[in-house]
Structures are given as C-alpha cells and as structure tokens.
C-alpha cells in the first residue's frame, strides 16, 4: 500500500516538476532571445520614417558635426555615450544614411515663465529648436537650454553658458520607472489576490513565492532578526524586485537603463539611509557616539569616524549599483562596437561570441546587484534595531 502511494506521489511530483521546469526553460529561452536580439538591433538599419510636425521649429545654427565625417571609433564612442545618457525621447536606432530616427517622443515639462509643456518631438532629436509660448529651447548633449529663435549656444571653452530652465520632463528614465512601478503593482496585487482564494499559489504567485521566501529567509531574517524583520519586509521586497526588473530590462534593446543613472541609485540609497536612521534605537546611537567597552580617548577618536561611516555606507551602496551596471553596459557595447572595428570574419565572430557571453554574465549581475543592495540594506537595518544584551 505504502509503496503504491509512494509511486503515485513520485509520478505526480515528476509531472509537476516537469511543468515547472518547462515554464522555467521557456522563460529562460525568452530572455536568451531578448539578449541575442540586442546586437541585431544595434546593427539594424530599417527605413522607417519618423513622423513629427516640423512646422513650429527652425534649424539649429550650430549643429553637431555631420555623422558621415566621423570615424568608426568616434561613432561607436558617441553611440555608447548616448546610450548611457538619459534622454527626452525613446530612441531605438538611427539610420545614418537617410538620417531617420526610430523611436517615440515623451513629454517635456519645464519650469520657466510658468510651466511649459510640449512634446519632445519638437526637438527633432536635438536638431531643431522647440518653441513654446514665445520661448525657445534647444537640446545640447541631452540637456535642455534656453536659446534664441535661431538656437545659438554661447560656448566658452567647451561649455554652454545658456540659461538652463528647471527640467521636470518625463524623460526616458522617469517613464520607465513609472512603467515598472505599474508592472510591479499589477504583479504583486495579482499574487496577493490569488492567496485569498486558496493557499496554493496560482498565476504570478507561482513564480513570485519562491523569490519572496528567498528574500525573507536568506536576506531579512538572518540580518535583521526574527523579532523586527516584518516591519522592513515591504521595503526590502520593493527594492529587490525593482532593481532586478530594471536591470533585466536594461539588457533588452529598448535602451532603458534606469540604474545607470546616479540620481536613481541616489534616491534608493537615501531611502535606505532615512529608514535606517529613523528606526535606529538607543543601542545604535550609543555604538556610534559612545561605544561601550572602549577607553575614553579612543571613544573621542572613534566617534567622528563612526559618524562618517553612517554617511559612507549609503554612499557606497549608491556607487556600487550605479558603477556595476554602467561598467557592464560599457563593456557590452564596446564588445559590440569591436565587431565593426575588426570588420573581419574571424574578429567579428569572436567579439560577437564574447558579447553574447557577457550578456549572460550581465543577466547574473542584474540579479546579484539586486541581491547585494537588498542584503546590505537589511544589514544596516539590522544594525539599527539590534539589541545588545551581551555587553
């Protein structure tokens, strides 16, 4: 009897297991295809026309040097720099021969003489001057400047000295953050709803449950402790899934790289900092300013260093995430650029293979950075709420 039952369970488990593995391989295959498509997209040269109104704009007087005049290396460098920057429009690719851009515009919101709101299609990818309520604006290296009708920049030793309006635009990063926030809300409310019906997870919960349990059992409980971890779980889960999702989408051909922007990682680190300081208990502050068990001259010497450490910790957090993702993107794009520099059968094939390999490494780094950010955040929270009875 019992052996029969065992066999039954075994087969059932195997079927369920196979389904899970099938789903997992399908997801992996999807990701792999996305990563593989990336180099193809970068070389793609379609002939799509960019639809936009050119009635209200005039040509910028001092344009960037024509793209034909640039060498291959300079072009690749410019391309990488453009990729790392936040932009006022979603830019998928440019056909340099016909000078057409493929992408879609976003909203520009400027605080200058009241609020100026217009579509970024008026900039024509930085080639034209945009007019709004009698004011003229032009783009220079992705930043908005106030200009005259002809769009002249006052250049002094390589720097633009035009007036800069306060820019509250929905840029590429802002748009992506909103989109990802919406995706996360939908995924997690869906998962939460499925638990109201039955305790067996269904839908998105089937995929999210092991990850949530991983964050709880491997990150929150060991670092914060059984007593206090529940208060911080919502923040830790949000940070983990946000960074992971954003990093993964940074590898798709959409050209989104939210964690590439130091402002985004700065905001994340500031949140961690504020939560740590406000949940700091008596013991936490005591260990910073008047640590027990240390002679008094040493206490006076150590207190400023400890105080500095309070600020260095979140600073290291923001630099780590920003630098890792930026470095990964630069390496990946440089390897793709090498294909065009080698311009030979063997060299290009090698760098193509290498770029695919680095893409897979980046998939790992995307998850690893989310894990490390969450882990260190939990560590700081843990130190803030720790109670040292053993002193």
């Amino acid at each position, binding site marked *: 009897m019992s052996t029969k039952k065992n066999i039954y369970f075994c087969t059932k488990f195997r079927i369920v297991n196979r389904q899970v593995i099938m789903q997992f391989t399908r997801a992996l295959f999807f990701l792999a295809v996305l990563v593989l498509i990336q180099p193809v997209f970068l070389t793609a040269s379609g002939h799509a026309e960019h639809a936009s109104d050119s009635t209200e704009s005039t040509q910028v007087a001092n344009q960037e040097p024509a793209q034909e005049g640039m060498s291959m290396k300079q072009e690749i460098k410019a391309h990488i720099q453009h990729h790392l920057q936040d932009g006022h429009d979603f830019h998928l690719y440019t056909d340099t021969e016909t000078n057409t851009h493929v992408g879609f515009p976003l909203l520009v919101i400027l605080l200058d003489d009241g609020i100026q709101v217009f579509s970024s299609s008026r900039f024509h990818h930085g080639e034209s001057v945009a007019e709004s309520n009698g004011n003229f604006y032009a783009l220079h290296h992705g930043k908005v400047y106030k200009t005259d009708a002809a769009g002249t920049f006052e250049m002094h030793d390589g720097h633009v000295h035009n007036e800069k309006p306060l820019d509250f635009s929905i840029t590429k990063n802002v748009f992506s953050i909103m989109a990802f926030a919406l995706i996360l809300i939908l995924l997690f409310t869906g998962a939460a709803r499925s638990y109201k019906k039955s305790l067996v997870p269904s839908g998105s919960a089937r995929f999210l449950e092991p990850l949530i349990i991983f964050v709880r059992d*491997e990150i929150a409980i*060991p670092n914060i402790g059984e007593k206090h971890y529940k208060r911080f779980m919502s923040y830790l889960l949000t940070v983990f899934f946000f960074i992971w999702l954003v990093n993964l989408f940074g590898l798709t051909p959409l050209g989104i790289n939210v964690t590439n922007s130091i402002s985004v990682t700065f905001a994340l680190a500031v949140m961690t900092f504020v939560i740590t300081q406000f949940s700091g208990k008596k013991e936490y502050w005591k260990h910073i300013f008047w640590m027990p068990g240390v002679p008094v001259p040493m206490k006076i010497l150590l207190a400023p260093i400890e105080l500095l450490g309070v600020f260095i910790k979140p600073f*290291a957090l923001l*630099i*780590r995430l920003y*630098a*890792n993702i930026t*470095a990964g993107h630069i390496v990946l794009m440089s390897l793709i650029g090498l294909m065009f520099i080698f311009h030979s059968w063997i060299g290009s094939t090698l760098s193509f293979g290498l770029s695919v390999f680095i893409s897979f490494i980046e998939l790992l780094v995307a998850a*690893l950075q989310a*894990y*490390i950010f969450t*882990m*260190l955040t939990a*560590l700081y929270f843990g130190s803030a709420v720790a109670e040292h009875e053993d002193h």
Partner: protein
Amino acid sequence: MEIPAIVGAGLVVIGVGIGIGRIGGSAMDAIARQPEATNKIQTAMLIAAALIEGIGFAALFAV
C-alpha cells in the same frame, strides 16, 4: 615626469583584484572544509567582496 592618474587607478584595481581573489579562494577552502555551511560562507563572501569592489569603483571614478 608626472605619473598619470590612470596608473594609480590601475594599482588600486590590482589591489582590489588580489583582495577579491583572496576572499574567493578562502571561501572555496572553507566550503571544502565545511560543505554544510555553504550558504553562510557565500553570504559573508559576497558582502566582503561587494565592500572591496566599492573601493575599486571609487578609484575608477576618481580618474
């Protein structure tokens, strides 16, 4: 003769490489000695490596 800043950054990166290499190697030894403590060792290894990595990035961004 002036030494360019990038040389200093290179030296820092060598130091960071040695540091992370030592952490990884020691973690390997520890896991081989106590395979049942793999999870704890990996966590500690990643935290230490991440902290050292931060110094490397600081050097690279100072250039």
